[in-house]
């Protein structure tokens, strides 16, 4: 059903990962990415990889969801890997004209590839386990110091909230318009790309007109409910840090320290 369209890749759940504070989760996702880049040893990288898999298990994310997150980027990873293989100087394994594959090249390619894969997994772990509303709340709260520098933090989060609110409404409306145009003989399926793009016009124009009308009415309704920007506004939900957030920070820091230490103890992978 299009009515139940999931926004982003959020997988609703009630695990400890789901219940973490969205601000902490966002920061820790960034921190995990930094950790991945700090890791220079194969063991360090392996531990980081196991860490995110452990998080995925805690959050009850099915394995195939993890794969589907990586799939769209696999080609980029392969292309980057191929360039790495040819361009890194070192012990030559194979010559072909001006092209040379080195042992170091293969090592780097593999290391980089794995690093990018887990980078993506780290980021998706955030979007899989945090609802867009909470993500918005988290961003709003984290960016709020910037409001002093006249950065429109409240406006930004308000816009995101309204966008999230209207996605299902407009999706439903698109469906209705498509059906109405089909009933009058519109053809969206045949023809080349240009023709199909042209066929979308009779959908887009009514959709835009309606979106503007909705925006107008919404603005009026917001006015009637005394909306006058972010100043002096209170909130229904106030994000509060819990014990589990501290635990998550400690665990992530521990990972970082281990990875960093291994850099000095073990030889670098490339």
């Amino acid at each position: 059903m299009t009515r139940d369209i999931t926004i982003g890749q959020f997988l609703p759940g009630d695990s400890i990962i789901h219940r973490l504070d969205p601000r902490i989760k966002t920061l820790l996702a960034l921190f995990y990415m930094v950790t991945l880049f700090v890791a220079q040893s194969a063991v360090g990288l392996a531990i980081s990889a196991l860490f995110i898999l452990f998080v995925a298990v805690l959050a009850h994310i099915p394995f195939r969801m993890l794969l589907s997150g990586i799939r769209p980027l696999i080609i980029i990873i392969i292309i980057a890997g191929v360039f790495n293989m040819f361009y890194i100087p070192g012990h030559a394994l194979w010559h072909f004209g001006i092209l040379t594959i080195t042992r170091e090249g293969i090592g780097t390619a593999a290391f980089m590839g794995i690093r990018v894969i887990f980078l993506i997994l780290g980021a998706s772990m955030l979007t899989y386990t945090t609802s867009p509303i909470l993500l918005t709340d988290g961003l709003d709260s984290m960016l709020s110091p910037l409001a002093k520098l006249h950065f429109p933090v409240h406006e930004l989060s308000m816009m995101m909230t309204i966008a999230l609110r209207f996605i299902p409404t407009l999706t439903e409306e698109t469906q209705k318009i498509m059906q109405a145009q089909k009933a009058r003989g519109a053809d969206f399926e045949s023809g080349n790309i240009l023709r199909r793009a042209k066929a979308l016009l009779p959908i887009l124009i009514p959709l835009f007109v309606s979106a503007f009308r909705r925006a107008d009415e919404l603005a009026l309704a917001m006015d009637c409910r005394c909306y006058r920007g972010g100043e002096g506004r209170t909130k229904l939900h106030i994000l509060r840090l819990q014990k589990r957030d501290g635990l998550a920070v400690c665990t992530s820091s521990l990972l970082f320290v281990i990875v960093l230490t291994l850099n000095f103890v073990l030889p670098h992978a490339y």
Partner: protein
Amino acid sequence: MENIIEAKNVSFSYPLDETTRLQALKNVSLQIPKGQFLAILGHNGSGKSTLAKLFNAILTPEQGDVYALGINTHDETRVYDIRQHVGMVFQNPDNQIVATVVEEDVAFGLENLGIPTAEIRKRIDEALKLVGMYEYRNEAPHHLSGGQKQRVAIAGVLAMHPDCIVLDEPTAMLDPKGRKEVMRTLRELHTAGTTVVLITHFMEEAVQTDRIVVMEHGAVILSGTPKEIFGNIPLLHSVGLDVPQVTELSYELKKCGLHLPENILTVNELANALADLLGGSRCPSFKQKI
């Protein structure tokens, strides 16, 4: 009785193009006493929506004055005082719900007013219970029916503790079930003491109010209790307004020579009158459906 809203000789026009303007309201005066359940009837373009927008300072009159709770709506410094006390609900529930969760939407107005969090929580629960949507507080609005969405919108206004609530055709986009839900909610609000101004096309809804105002071409042409208004069926027909079906039927029956009392507005009344006429017993168990 104290007037919650008072319009004194107000006129308003919309610009059509650079030279001509559309006169939406002409010298309208209207008093709405505290606690009244008022219905405003009229055709499209009769000026009823424009009048409603004058009540909470969304528009200000070009001539004349509107007082809401004694505050002149021309006073720009007190616009938000007025809007807090005169709430407004519109036709399309989809276009007035701001948040992605029911309770957050109800909280929206309160957040704007800077009410402390604990108090917001209390008021949301109270407002949602009042409109019978408490169980749905954690739902996404797009999972609700039209009537339910409209009741959420009403709760959003109620949570601000208004003295008066103005509804601009709140049932126009709803199915009969949704219409009944909304009307039941409005009647309960009225009983609890809130002033309710209902702009509507449906005569069956207008019948349930204390007083009806009929508008035509930007002016108030009739004002009175439902019995008074619907007693004058030829006049209503002359301005092109429908009459509740029961009233119409009893009017026609009377024209045919039946001795029915004046001003029958509900199915119950007609059923009883007919039973009396036939000499039979009254119909005690007939339940009014509207």
